């Protein structure tokens, strides 16, 4: 049952991700991005991480995507006609894309990917709760990164004021 749901949402995510890249209309691409985010949230639920799933929906599908749409509205790029590409862009993209694909196939064919396993198994998570598990780590072992996050947000606040706010002459 879990496997069926996984393949359903994984396929949806991959198709929508292709749509983000391939669709010419930026608004359609943004809509596909929303589908990608929500599919990923469903995959997090399957991994017994409902808090991460909720954060994914709230932050990515809710906030980050709004920023994408705002940038589309600010720039109003219209529908991309495919013109204006650099002269060598297409052949170069084909060569590098092919090289990357060959590399990926070689690596994936030869290696067994070890699944990252921490001390939190699904059973343990179900017992203590995933919010508790995240919080217990975040507020003890990873306290410094947590506090640095506030500095990161502060930098972003200052940055957006400097970039987007007209200076008031006084």
């Amino acid at each position, binding site marked *: *049952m*879990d496997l069926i*749901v996984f393949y359903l949402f994984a396929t949806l995510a991959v198709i929508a991700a292709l749509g983000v890249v391939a669709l010419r209309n930026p608004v359609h691409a943004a809509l596909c991005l929303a589908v990608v985010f929500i599919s990923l949230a*469903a995959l997090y*639920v*399957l991994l*017994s991480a*409902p*808090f991460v799933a909720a*954060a994914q929906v*709230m*932050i990515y599908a*809710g*906030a*980050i995507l*709004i*920023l994408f749409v*705002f*940038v589309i*509205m*600010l*720039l*109003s790029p*219209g529908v991309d006609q495919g013109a204006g590409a650099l002269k060598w862009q297409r052949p170069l993209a084909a060569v590098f894309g092919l090289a990357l694909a060959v590399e990926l196939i070689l690596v994936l064919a030869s290696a067994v990917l070890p699944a990252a396993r921490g001390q939190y198994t699904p059973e343990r998570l*179900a017992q203590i*709760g995933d*919010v*508790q598990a*995240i*919080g*217990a780590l*975040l*507020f003890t072992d990873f*306290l410094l990164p*947590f*506090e640095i*996050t*506030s*500095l990161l*947000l*502060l930098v*972003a*606040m*200052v940055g*957006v*004021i400097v970039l*987007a*706010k007209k200076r*008031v002459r006084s």
Partner: protein
Amino acid sequence: MPIDYLPILVMVVVVIAFAAIALTFSALTGPRRPNPSKLSPYESGMPPFGSARRRISIKYYLTAVLFILFDIEIIFFYPWAVLFRQLQLFGLIEMAVFVIVLLVGYVYIWKKGGFDWD
């Protein structure tokens, strides 16, 4: 447990089915007698002018970014609130440091007039 999320999946399926059925049936069974006012984008409204794809003001971008920043801030409060009793005074202090740093940013935005529209 993933099975607890079945109602959401059921709701998604019902919503898609409802939208598909409503659109299909009204397209198949409804009479089609168009006239110019029915075909206008807003019936009994103001006719639209200009392109909808014009650029919007940068002020909206400011609002959007500030929303995201405080949205991210809020997501950290949730696990903290769940664990508040276990963390005790230490938890209060570490969240106070977090909030004070962000409060500096809040005051900065306020003083720079980030909350004024003009």
